[in-house]
């Protein structure tokens, strides 16, 4: 790409720098507030970095609160949801990509419509349904609900990845005597691993930050997740921003790690298929 002018290159770098600053500054501020001691929180006004830092908020969150438990619950729920959704969506997306079958149009329409429900409408009925099954106040219930709500988008995403893989590959395998399922498992799935990583990432972050269902379906501390903990924190202790932001920074770590881990695949994966209309 030697034909870009120096001015063009500078403008390109400068524009990217602005995007990076815009993306990172709020995260920087989150970290800054979390290490600011309480006595400096308001007295120093708008300082870019506090004159003295402390880990008191982190210590409180880790030692004197239920956050380690919330953390564990959120990890279990998000990882399970991401794994289950990805498997279900891999099968569903494959069917959508490779087969023409009766009712396909209706099912596609149904999946699209599920993206339009105001969730609040479903909360009371879902609560009534899960309660007699003993699935309220349980991580299993949350996993079930999150899985369902993430499946439609994940199917569209997986379908776009499968669409990008030539059909001849599994047809050749079938001519060699493999069943379609064998061809799917041994040839197509390995090729879609980047796409599956992308799906895992999207679903993990969605489950990790879900608040509404976590709030309504769970009232016991044992099965509460991180977002609920963060919210209860605000009301219970008054608005202690230092402690809340410390908890927030901790909540951020797994999501960011997971996202960084899969983002490499994300673009490669999407590139393989690209989301097609």
């Amino acid at each position, binding site marked *: *790409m030697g034909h870009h002018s120096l001015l063009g290159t500078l403008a*390109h770098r400068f*524009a*990217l720098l602005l*995007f990076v600053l815009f*993306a*990172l500054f*709020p995260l920087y*501020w*989150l970290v800054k*507030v979390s290490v600011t001691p309480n006595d400096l*929180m308001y007295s120093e*006004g*708008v300082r870019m970095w506090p004159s003295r830092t402390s880990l008191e908020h982190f210590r409180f969150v880790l030692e004197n609160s239920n956050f380690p438990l919330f953390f564990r619950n959120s990890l279990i729920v998000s990882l399970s949801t991401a794994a289950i959704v990805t498997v279900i969506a891999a*099968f*569903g997306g494959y*069917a959508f990509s*490779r*087969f023409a*079958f009766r009712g396909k149009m209706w*099912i596609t329409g*149904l*999946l699209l419509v*599920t*993206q339009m*429900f*105001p*969730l*609040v*409408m*479903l909360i*009371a*009925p879902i609560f009534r*349904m899960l309660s007699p099954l003993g699935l309220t106040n349980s991580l299993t219930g949350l996993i079930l609900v999150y899985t*369902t709500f993430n*499946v*439609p*988008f994940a199917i569209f995403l997986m379908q776009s990845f499968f669409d990008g893989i030539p059909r001849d590959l599994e047809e050749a395998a079938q001519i060699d005597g493999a069943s379609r399922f064998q061809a799917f498992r041994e040839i197509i799935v390995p090729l879609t691993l980047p796409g599956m990583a992308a799906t895992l990432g999207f679903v993990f*972050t969605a489950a*990790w*930050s879900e*608040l509404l269902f976590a709030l309504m379906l769970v009232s016991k501390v044992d099965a509460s997740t*991180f*977002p609920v903990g*963060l*919210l209860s924190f605000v009301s219970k202790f008054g608005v202690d921003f230092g402690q*809340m*932001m410390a908890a*927030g920074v901790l*909540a*951020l770590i797994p*999501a960011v790690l*997971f996202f960084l881990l899969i*983002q*490499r695949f*994300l673009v490669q994966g*999407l*590139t393989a298929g690209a989301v*097609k*209309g």
Partner: protein
Amino acid sequence: MVPFQDRRTPGQRFLQAAEPYLYSAPALVLILAVMLVPLVIGVSYAFRDIRLLSPFSGGFVGLKHFHALWVDRNFWLALNNTLYWTGISVALQFLLGLTLALLLNRPFRGRGIVQALCFLPWAVPTFLSGLNWAWMFNPVVGPIPHWLFALGLMDAPTNILADPQLAIWGPIVANVWWGIPFFAITMLAALQSIPRDIYEAASIDGANSVQQFWSITLPFLAPTMAITLLLRTVWVANFADLIVVMTGGGPADRTQIVASYIFTTAFRKLDFGYASAISLVLLGLLLLYSLALVSLRQMLLRKG
């Protein structure tokens, strides 16, 4: 598919016909059981008197909620705010996301790390991002009012989130920050799938980069743009987290969108019947919007 498949037994033939249904069965069973059954119940709530913690609720009230809705000034205000909130949020996310994708589409050293940093906001839980942005808008310790004051755009660092004219911009900025990566990722993926040689052929024919953008890039991006804009518009219209966390719909309902109004009605007023009626209307409006878009697209495709 292949004409000489007669050697299959009827059992095999049945299995083959059932295959697509078997592959999609887990998804369909879940959606029918955990989404559609509650949806039907939820729709029935819209015609009943469902109030939590109220012993005399549950009766059929016909169209009472819808009549109440028709004369509810707060609902119409919220609907108006929804158009504003969704339109501006999605337009800004889309334009900035597309710009970022175009910038990232050009190879340069350190692209991977820049890309990772730009995509980070998507990993931040939305309620946390709302709390953080509310803190950044704080008139005493928040940098944003401070900067606006320093730039001379404000007479004093005041609380933007409490200003009826400006408050909606708080959640909008937070929403744009969070949503840019979604468009950047999908647009970048679409950009990367455009065959390089098309550009080479065009530049040999003497097309400059602006012409190339309009005649090659844009048509290739169009399908991805259509589906992502549709999905995102619907999501953002339904997305109340940031508003609930940052302004709670205030001041004086100026930031109340329909989705947050439903939330308030259900969880603060505990009136699930009325909340369901509003939800049903919002669902109807979003369906109409999507149908209009899809048929518009069909019409344009037929013309082109």
